[in-house]
C-alpha cells in the first residue's frame, strides 16, 4: 500500500473509531469483543481503502464494522448466549416522586434494556439513526437493504420500544 494512502486513511477514516466502537458495542454487547472487531474492521478498511474514493468515510467504516460484527456472530454462534437481562447495570430506583434525577435515570435504564433486547436488525437501525444520525440512504448503504426496508424497520423498532416502555397508543400524553 502506498504511503500516501496510509496517510489519507489516517486522516479520513481513523477519526471515526469512536463511532465504529459504539456500533460494535451495540451489536456485540461485549466490550472486549467490540475492541477486537473494531481493530479487525479498521485493518480490513485499510486494505480495501484503495477502493474507497469518495463518499462518507464514516458510513463506509460503519458498514465494514457491521459486517465484521456479523461475521463474529457467525463464528461464535456455538457459544452465543441469550442476552442477560441484567446486562445493563441496574440503577437504584427512588420512590420519591420529587427525585427527578432518579426517575430520569431509571427511565434511561429502561430504554437501554429495551434497546438491548431488540433483535439485531432493529437495534442496528436505531443506533445508526439515533446515535450516528445517518440518513435513510446512508443506513441503507450500511445495512445493505433498500431504503423502504430501512424505513419500515425503523418504524417497527420504535413501536417495539414504545411498547416495551409502556408508551402504548392508549396512553395519553
Amino acid at each position, binding site marked *: *500500500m502506498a*504511503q500516501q494512502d*496510509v*496517510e489519507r*486513511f*489516517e486522516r479520513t477514516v*481513523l477519526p471515526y*473509531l*469512536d463511532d*465504529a*466502537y*459504539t456500533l460494535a*458495542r*451495540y451489536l456485540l454487547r461485549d466490550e472486549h469483543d*467490540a*475492541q*477486537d472487531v*473494531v*481493530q*479487525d474492521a*479498521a*485493518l480490513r478498511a*485499510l*486494505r480495501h481503502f484503495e477502493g474507497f474514493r469518495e463518499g462518507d468515510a464514516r458510513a463506509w467504516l460503519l458498514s465494514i464494522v457491521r459486517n465484521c460484527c456479523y*461475521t*463474529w456472530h457467525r*463464528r461464535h454462534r456455538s457459544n452465543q448466549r441469550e442476552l442477560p437481562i441484567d446486562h445493563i447495570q441496574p440503577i437504584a430506583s427512588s420512590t420519591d416522586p420529587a427525585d427527578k434525577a432518579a426517575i430520569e435515570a431509571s*427511565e*434511561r435504564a*429502561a*430504554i*437501554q434494556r*429495551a*434497546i438491548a433486547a431488540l433483535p439485531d436488525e432493529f437495534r442496528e437501525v*436505531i*443506533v445508526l*439513526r*439515533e*446515535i450516528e444520525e445517518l*440518513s*435513510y440512504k446512508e443506513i441503507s448503504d450500511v445495512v445493505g437493504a433498500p431504503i423502504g426496508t430501512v*424505513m419500515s424497520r*425503523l*418504524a417497527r423498532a*420504535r413501536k417495539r*420500544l*414504545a411498547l416495551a*416502555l409502556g*408508551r402504548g*397508543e392508549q*396512553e*395519553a*400524553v
Partner: protein
Amino acid sequence: MHCTDCLEKLDAYVDGELSPEEARDVDQHLAACAECARAHAELVALSRSIKEGLVRHHAPDVLKARIRSAVLAEPARIPNAGFGVSRIRIAAAGILVAALSSAATLAVVHERNAGPSIESDVVASHIRSLIPGHLTDVVSTNQHNVKPWFNGRVDLSPAVPGLDSAGFPLVGGRVDYVGGRVVPVTVYSRRQHMINVYAWPAERERAITPEHFTERGYHVVRWTSGGIELWAVSDLNAPELDQFVERFNASR
C-alpha cells in the same frame, strides 16, 4: 391525506426524510387531526428518549493506539491476517521486519571494538524497543495519560507534548535502562517510523543547539533544554526528525 397514510409516513417525517411536498401534506394533516398530532408528539418524545438512553461509547486509548500502530505497520504487512491472529502480532510483525534488518546492521557494527558509549547504548535501546512487545509499557495516544504514568517510576517527570497536529502522534511511553540508569522514554510515530525520546538530567553544560549524528544507520538528535538532556532516535529521515525536535521543543 388519510390517517393511515399519515401514520405510515410519520417516522420519515420526524426523521426529516420526506420530500418537501410530502412533508407539507403531513403538516396539513397534523394541523387538522388531533389523533395523528398526538401520535406525532409521542413519536418525537420517544425519539428523544431513545437518544438520551443510548450511550456514545469512546474507543479506549489502548485500542486506538493499537490500531494506529497496526496501520503504520501495514506497508510491511503480512498477508491474510484476519480473525484469530493476535491483533498485536500483526503490528509487531511489521516492527519485527525492521528490527531484523537493523540486527543485521548491528552484527556488522559489533565487530568494531568500541566500548559501550552512551550513543551506542541509546541506539541499542532504540533497536530493542522495536522488537515486538518492547516498545511501550504504557500505550496511549493521550499525553495526559502518559505523563502521570512516569510518576514514581523515574526520578524525572519528562515533557510529553501532544504533537498530533504536527503529524507526530504519541504512541506511549516506557522506562528503559540506558547509560547505567533508568530513564523515561516517550514514543512518537511518523508513518511507520517510531521515534524514541530519552530524557535525563543534564550533567554538564551542553550546547543548547541540537547535535546530530548517525549511529548504526539511525538518526540521533541530542540537545539540552531546561537542565534536561534529551535524545531523539529514529530511522526517520534527518529533516523530518529535525522537524520533530523543533515541534517537540516548541510545545514543551
